[in-house]
């Protein structure tokens, strides 16, 4: 049983780098039984159960609200620290000081180290602090709980989906392996050119600096172009297929205890969660017959945004802190 979950854990790392999720080769006995029982359920009973469940359904936005609040609060703290000179969180998202402690964004640190080929202590201290921080808080939760571009892209996504519902636009998916290619490409570009090439187009850095210093208004046009592209052509293109920051924090998320947990029992396999998810490939386990166990942790590429938790009508997707339930 442990072995099957371990294999899925490793598989999910490959999925993060761009492999398409596939049907598991091995499934635990109890999961097999659950799948079997679901298949045996009378069609009419199932319909009745679904209808009953839907009639009691409450559209929740609990996690989304908490997340938006957190994201805005953190970015506001950056802005106010400078604007009002309260000096709590000084700097920008690429590098800052929280009450004096150095915090360095992991991806920016990698870019600087590769381009400059010289490492100083402050940079290492700040990088280590941030690494520990995001191991604790869930890797890509940086994306959905902190990154200002994520919020703008979420709003752009709403416009995209509204237009798509009116059949005015269609999502044009891209090969997910592209993000890994970009990561390597930007790393190589930093080494070869000696410039932090990615930083000059990173919407995260551009937005953060624009908010705090009011600088880089031309650069905001690039961010706007990205958003327009996402509205009319490719849904969430930057976060899904391009951003190396996401992949860097995704790797941190491999060892993070904060994650979403899927429980097979109550799930009707309707796929509402996959429709709202930024990275639906991590939710392949909710597809009928795919869950390898009765409880399956969601993989590292998950941004822990909680949209699926809000959306799931059966409570089959929940936040979990690994090991905490055992302690309690």
């Amino acid at each position, binding site marked *: 049983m442990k072995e099957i979950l371990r294999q899925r854990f490793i598989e999910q790392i490959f999925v993060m780098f761009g492999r398409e999720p596939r049907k598991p080769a091995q499934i635990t006995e109890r999961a097999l039984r659950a799948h079997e029982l679901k298949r045996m359920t009378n069609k009419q009973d199932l319909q009745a159960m679904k209808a009953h469940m839907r009639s009691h359904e409450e559209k929740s936005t609990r996690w989304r609200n908490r997340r938006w609040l957190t994201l805005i609060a953190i970015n506001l703290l950056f802005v106010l620290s400078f604007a009002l000179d309260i000096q709590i969180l000084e700097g920008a998202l690429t590098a800052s000081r929280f009450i004096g402690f150095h915090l360095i964004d992991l991806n920016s640190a990698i870019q600087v180290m590769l381009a400059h080929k010289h490492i100083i202590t402050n940079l290492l201290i700040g990088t280590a602090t941030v690494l520990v921080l995001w191991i604790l808080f869930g890797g890509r939760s940086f994306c959905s709980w902190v990154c200002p571009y994520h919020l703008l892209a979420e709003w752009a996504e709403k416009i995209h989906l509204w237009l798509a519902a009116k059949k005015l636009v269609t999502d044009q998916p891209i090969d997910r392996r592209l993000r890994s290619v970009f990561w390597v490409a930007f790393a190589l570009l930093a080494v070869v050119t000696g410039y932090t090439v990615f930083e*000059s187009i990173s919407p995260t850095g551009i937005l953060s600096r624009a908010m705090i210093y009011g600088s880089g208004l031309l650069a905001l046009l690039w961010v706007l172009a990205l958003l327009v592209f996402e509205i009319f052509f490719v849904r969430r293109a930057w976060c899904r297929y391009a951003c190396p920051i996401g992949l860097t924090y995704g790797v941190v998320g491999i060892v993070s205890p904060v994650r979403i947990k899927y429980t097979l029992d109550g799930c009707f396999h309707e796929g509402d969660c996959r429709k709202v998810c930024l990275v639906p490939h991590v939710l392949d386990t909710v*597809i009928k017959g795919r869950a390898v166990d009765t409880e399956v942790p969601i993989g590292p590429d998950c941004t822990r945004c909680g949209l699926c938790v809000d959306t799931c009508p059966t409570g089959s997707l929940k936040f979990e802190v690994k090991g905490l339930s055992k302690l309690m």
Partner: protein
Amino acid sequence: MSDAEETSPGSAEKVGAGRTAPPQSKERKQQARRRVLRTILLTGGVLGAALSGYLPIAYAQKTRLRPPGALDEQDFLSSCIKCGQCVQVCPVQAIKLADLADGYGQGVPYIEAREQACDFSCDAVQCILACPTGSLTYRKPAFMPVRPGAKLASKPILLAKESDAEPTLNLAERIGVARLTRPESCLAIQGKGFKGPARGAEFKGELRYMSVDRWKPIPISEHPYDTALCDLCVQACPVKGAISIEAVFAPDGSSRKSPVVHEPCVGCGVCEMVCPTEPASIEIMPGEGWRA
């Protein structure tokens, strides 16, 4: 996405069986081909945008004046993490972050000396202290070469704290050097004096005047000058012995007064900021070294 297909029970099996490559319909193949094309397009778009950052560097018309303690331009651009912590500590807001027009210099700090020069009001070169990556540094790592003429003969003495126990600035290299680029317009050379606010009543730039307040820089517009022979650059210069008015001799043998820059000049740009002629007669040459 093809979510709808995948989540319906029937096709879940089909997708799952992907390992043995099922025969694809013509439509599927076309879809796949389009996806490859789109992927290539997005790759080109993003990398194109990223590499276009080279253009402003390749076509750069003028070099930027960087904050004190900055590494040489290439090292500075590669090591700066673009966080703006130097911007936050500067008491006169001399440091700005560059925009997209600077290419890879986007988000990197610079000083527009004519608008607001660094006058070392912070006494301790705070921006260097704030820098988390060593792009601004008191002491350059040994393996980095020093530009010819960049090394200061001795630590510059800050006039504002000349009577302190430690009167020097912890600076080993200059960020540029002042030159009288337009001697023909210089008021001192013309033998003219100057009366009034140096840059007009509207000018926003600030400067610390020891005679007014040791700790608080005030707008230049609030500190009018009145001199029989213009020596504003000498009066405003924060570094001891960096500039003085000297008698110089023209080729025809006639003598006139002129500002003369000396070796201790660190390239802060205060002289350029206060120069009352338009455009400034004295300017900072960013990154240039001292030539005797």
